[in-house]
């Protein structure tokens, strides 16, 4: 039984690209989780459920129109559906709980995750769902004798776009600046006459919207199923922890480490591939217990 498969630079490159594309989906979701953690100090376990709702909503919207148009519509609308759900949740529930201790918030968001999970089952049923990639992004491109899916290249592109948009939002817009300030000292922001309550609502909705976008983006590459929320939320918390809680660029670094160690691990040691991303997490936390980048906590 061969232990190390033989591969050349082409396989290495294609594996790297596949890893990057996975990292980008993780980044989109984790950036939202990290943003909410940073600004609101809420460890939102229900973030994974919003991601799942995003994926299921993508399924429904993409069925509403024939052909590829359905998917593009879904990519636009699914995050908005999730944003709306999170707005309702924030106004009705979360805003009364910000002052509570973290353990209470953990329990609350965990309960919310279970409720949302059951709601998904009521609305969409227990069957596996699948969304087709749009025609434009179907199939694969061969490069240097090795092929990789077009859709994964698109994911890398979208991931970069989201990163740039977030950077612009946080650094160049008033809302972004207030969010950052509120993350550091929310009382001071309130004293300056800014309605902190609505800043928080806005930040929460933006964070959750990213979960919905992540769900929409992942839809064509996986089977959409109940339980996809649990798998993701564990990875997402690991990533924001190694990146530095509340630090969006930390989320990017964490996602890259997670995605790339996994895909390269698969290539070198396929039998032990599961271990690599987690081993990377352990190493990072041993060297930098507070995460790679500065945590706002």
């Amino acid at each position, binding site marked *: 039984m*061969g232990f190390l498969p033989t591969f050349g630079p082409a396989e290495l490159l294609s594996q790297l690209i596949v*890893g990057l594309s996975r990292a980008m*989906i993780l980044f989109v979701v984790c950036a939202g989780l990290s943003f909410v953690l940073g600004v609101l100090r809420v460890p939102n376990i229900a973030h994974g459920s919003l991601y799942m709702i995003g994926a299921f909503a993508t399924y429904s919207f993409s069925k509403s129109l024939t052909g590829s148009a359905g998917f593009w519509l879904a990519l636009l609308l699914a995050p908005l559906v999730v944003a709306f759900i999170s707005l309702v949740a924030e106004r009705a529930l979360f805003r009364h709980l910000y002052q509570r201790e973290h353990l209470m918030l953990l329990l609350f968001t965990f309960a919310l995750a279970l409720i949302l999970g059951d709601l998904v089952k009521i609305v969409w049923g227990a*069957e596996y769902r*699948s969304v087709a990639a749009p025609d434009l992004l179907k199939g694969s491109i061969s490069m240097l004798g090795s092929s990789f*899916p077009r859709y994964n290249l698109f994911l890398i592109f979208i991931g970069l776009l989201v990163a740039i948009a977030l950077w612009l939002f946080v650094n160049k817009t008033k809302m972004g600046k207030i969010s950052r300030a509120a993350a550091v000292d929310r009382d001071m922001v309130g004293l300056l006459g800014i309605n902190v309550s609505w800043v928080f609502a806005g930040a929460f909705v933006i964070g959750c919207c990213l979960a919905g976008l992540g769900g929409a983006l992942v839809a064509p590459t996986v*089977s959409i199923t109940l339980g996809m929320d649990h798998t993701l939320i564990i990875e997402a918390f690991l990533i924001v922890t190694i990146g530095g809680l509340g630090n969006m660029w930390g989320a990017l670094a964490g996602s890259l480490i997670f995605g790339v160690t996994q*895909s390269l691990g698969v290539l070198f040691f*396929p039998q032990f*591939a599961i271990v690599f991303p987690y081993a990377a997490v352990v190493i990072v936390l041993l060297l930098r217990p507070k995460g790679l980048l500065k945590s706002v906590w």
Partner: protein
Amino acid sequence: MKRIVTMKGLALLAVLLAAFLFFHPSGVKAQAPIKVGIIDTYTGPPTAYTYDVRDAFKLAIDEVNTKGGVLGRKIEFTTRDDKFKVDLALSMAKELVMNEKVDILMGTINSAGTLAVSEFCKVEKIPFLVTFSKSDKITGEKGHRYVFSITENTVMIGKAAAAGLSKRPFLKYWIAGDDYEYGHALADGVWGNLKKIKPKVELIGQSWWKVGEPDLTPYLTAISAAKPDAVIFATGAASMVNAMKVAKATGFAEKIPMFIHTATELATLAPLGPEAPEKIIGTSNYHFYYPATPKNKAFAKAFRDAYGRYPKVGALYGYLTAQFIAKALEKAGKMDREKFIDVLEGMKIDSPVGEVEMRAYDHQAMLPMFMAVTKKVPTYSFLIASDIVTIPAKEVMPGIEEIKKARGQ
């Protein structure tokens, strides 16, 4: 005058008699029903399978009951959700026996839960009919007088896959799968048997991912770099759909032949719709369109009329279980647990997939397996199994010697 009194008296008597017949409990009402308890997972992803078991079981029981039931008694059933948890499955089984006083138990989709309930039934002497768990321990190593399996197990899957694959020209194989008991048991089953039938085959590598791994792209691209002749996938349901999607998107499916147990099954192909890759080799116990016998057509139609969807493999297991229970009760002549087991051993029923025998020695239902490849057809909005080869039950059943050995006899 006297005559009128008599008339009045007669009328009164008639009214009283009618009232007596109407209200008296034993006059028109049949005897107490025979109770079956179902423990299964009714939350989360396994429901994609368990709902079909329950619904087809109900369909068959309703048929029996509209004909007056068995032994003049109706069959009733109660369900309990074990939430895919072993301890819950066991406590639900106890509750059904103690409180609901069920005569027969059936379920579950979780192998560990099934083995726990099976132990309980062995002690309490309750007949237990297993509907979906695939562990070969159920009727093998841990088999006993009170447990029956009405579904395939990992040994049967392995033998069927090996029989089918050995006829194909592949020599260099790769194994990939979900890193849990079912995945490894499946892989060992297929590989051990294939190596026995065709010693020339060579395993050039393996990849194992964690259960629920969302993106299998890196695994498939790595496998394709190693260029095996064929890949054996040992996956549960969700990963299977993922594997097929990625196989299509990366062009893997066109380059390297893939075998996935149940790839040709409706539960896998329906969610993928027209996006499923063609030419994936799969095995399954059931297709609603094959065999095209009147019995199968009638069953598929009845199921579709009742529930508005096509029956999947779970529906066959549920239906068969009901058929076995009804026929065994009929033959036993009364609800006697020991008698029920005696007559169930070696019983043959005429099922949608032909005659199925309950093997007397190990209580394993002898189900045929169908090997096929996925194919696009204009008739349905999803791919179907084509070039179906039936691997008869005799070829897939574990040998009785092996079972004796596993049981330490």
